């Protein structure tokens, strides 16, 4: 027993020293970076005009590197699918929330929705955007669920799935549509780029919000082995 502990201690010591060495090396490597040639900042700035939005981060997220974002929507969808496949739809039996939360949620939820809308809209030229908006929306959903709100089972079928998928779906559709009208994939022509991005962002916000809320909900499986 003591031997075990001793070897455990020795191993831990070894691990710590190893990790320290790694940290030191990484730190050395980071410090050795010369930051004189900055990344793509200038390039982004130069092409910002053509992107359809004025905020560089949004431009990168939805235009220059929109493909990353598209796949990222896919990641979200896969996470949701994974969660659902593990437990299926969550149970509806939940203890009622306390009165404070109830009141708080009544107050907070509309505000959060407003914030989300604002973030989405402002994203085109200032910090903000679909993900932030979506997550705020998601937070609203979480709050609602904490307050005991549940999705009506009538909407839990195809409609819900459509909402979940819509973010990715619209993104793919729009990008492919560009292909069909003669542009490249995901190539938004400047005149309509702004509108298209807004469309994508709007749908994405809704979808992200729903997905995040569903992820939260899905993390509450029924107790006991479910078959």
């Amino acid at each position, binding site marked *: 027993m003591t031997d075990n502990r001793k070897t455990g201690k020795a191993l831990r010591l070894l691990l710590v020293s190893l990790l320290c060495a790694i940290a030191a090396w990484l730190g050395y490597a980071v410090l050795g970076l010369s930051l004189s040639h900055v990344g793509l900042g200038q390039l982004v700035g130069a092409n910002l005009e053509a992107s359809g939005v004025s905020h560089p981060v949004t431009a990168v997220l939805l235009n220059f590197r929109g493909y990353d974002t598209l796949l990222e929507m896919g990641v979200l969808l896969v996470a949701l*699918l994974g969660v659902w496949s593990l437990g299926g739809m969550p149970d509806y039996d939940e203890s009622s929330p306390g009165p404070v939360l109830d009141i708080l949620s009544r107050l907070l939820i509309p505000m959060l929705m407003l914030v989300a809308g604002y973030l989405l809209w402002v994203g085109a030229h200032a910090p903000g955007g679909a993900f932030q908006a979506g997550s705020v929306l998601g937070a609203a959903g979480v709050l609602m669920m904490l307050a005991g709100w549940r999705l009506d089972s009538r909407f839990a079928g195809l409609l819900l799935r459509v909402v979940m998928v819509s973010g990715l779906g619209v993104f793919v559709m729009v990008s492919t549509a560009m292909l069909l009208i003669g542009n490249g994939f995901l*190539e938004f022509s400047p005149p309509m780029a702004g509108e298209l991005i807004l469309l994508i962002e709007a749908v994405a916000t809704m979808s992200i919000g729903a997905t995040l809320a569903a992820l939260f909900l899905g993390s509450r499986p029924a107790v006991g082995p479910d078959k």
Partner: protein
Amino acid sequence: MTGDIVGIPWIVVLIVLPLTGGMACFLFPTISKSLGLIFALAIFTAVVGLGWQLVEQGAQRYAIGGWGASLGIDLYADGLSLLMLVTAALVGLGVSVYSGAYFSREKAKHFWPLWLLLWAALNALFLSADIFNLYVTLELLGLAAVALIALADGADALNSAMRYLLVSLLGSLFYLLGVALLYHSFGSLDIAILAQRMEPTPAVWSAVGLMSAGLLLKTALFPMHFWLPAAHACAPAPVSALLSALVVKASFYILLRLWLEVFALTDTSLGQLLGLLGATAVLWGGIQALRQTRLKLLIAYSTVAQLGYLFLAFPLGTNIAWKGACYMLLSHAIAKAAMFMAAGNILRFCGHDRIADLDRIAQRLPLTLTAFALAGVSIMGLPPSGGFIGKWLLLEASMSAGQWWWAVILILGGLLAAAYFFRVIGYAFTRAGLTHEVGVVPARMEWAALVLALAAILLGFISPAALELMGIGTPFGGERAG
């Protein structure tokens, strides 16, 4: 007409199709089975289309959004990508056919969207020319794979899915840190541009180390294979097939790309290390496989061993060695998929997969056993299978490089593989002590496994063409490149 076909941006189609398919299957679960098959066929066709395009026009670069690297993201397809895509398409088609009969209605509902999204991730990964984009695809792939493993009920499956998730995330983070370092060193994420700007600095070495470590973890190279056997053995049979055939290969592909293009290292001590690890994997995996009493675990350890082969090309670094490793990869993918499917059939038939109690499978499930045996032939590297071609090329490379010890490892690995596979086949002929209840195996599942196994054998006969296709865009450097 030909021009039309060649003109289609197959690269994009290959990514959009499975994504759409995944979404469609998600939206319409009742018809997901047929949808899935249709999309599988469509993807297969698209791969053929891309292949045609590559043959006609050479390596393809596609700037998404029209921006082009390094502002935007480029897609790039050359022989190596094509190889991976074809691998995925062949295995994917097989798995799709097989899964149509394998899963219950309830499971199928979850399986199809996840599988098609996983396929999308694979295709995106094989076509990406951007190291951050590769990270996203890796994550997509990893999460989808985890969810698929967890489709199998039971504590073991969940356990291994969890472990796999952690490993996968960890590997991705290592990779991402490497990406961060590379980006800040050279200000670009595009592989080609990075390759141009490459210079050895501490940061680059750190990136090499981090990315390699992360990817090796995901590829399950010995000694980082600890998560693999359980995960691959516990998953549902078609998922095991996917994992062993494709998912681990994806991270290997990235490593290969980086190694071949970005890092283009002349100092091969790291390559020697990888080779050494690969050799150890071959032997260790083989010995472990030999010790297993359960079929699926045996196959999973066999994967550990086979992955080791792929790394034997690193210390050699010649064109022919890379091609050998890639051929090995291709044939292993197909053969291993067939083998896992066969194991799935056996599992369903016997209700267990204890090797010693296989109880005359040879008589009672001949097609499946044939599939297993044929796949085994390829894995053992016996002629005229695809595995043989890979092995031959690697052997040739190691002998001409004068590094005969790798040849010895290759040979020993083949012997070990023969030892563990024939153990199974031997028991398939004998009568077990106790008889078992017999489950029904749909013919479709048997044939899917058999056809894939046959494909693994036939790969041996198309190697000149295949090697030529692989060489489009010279991903492995010139013929004489040392």
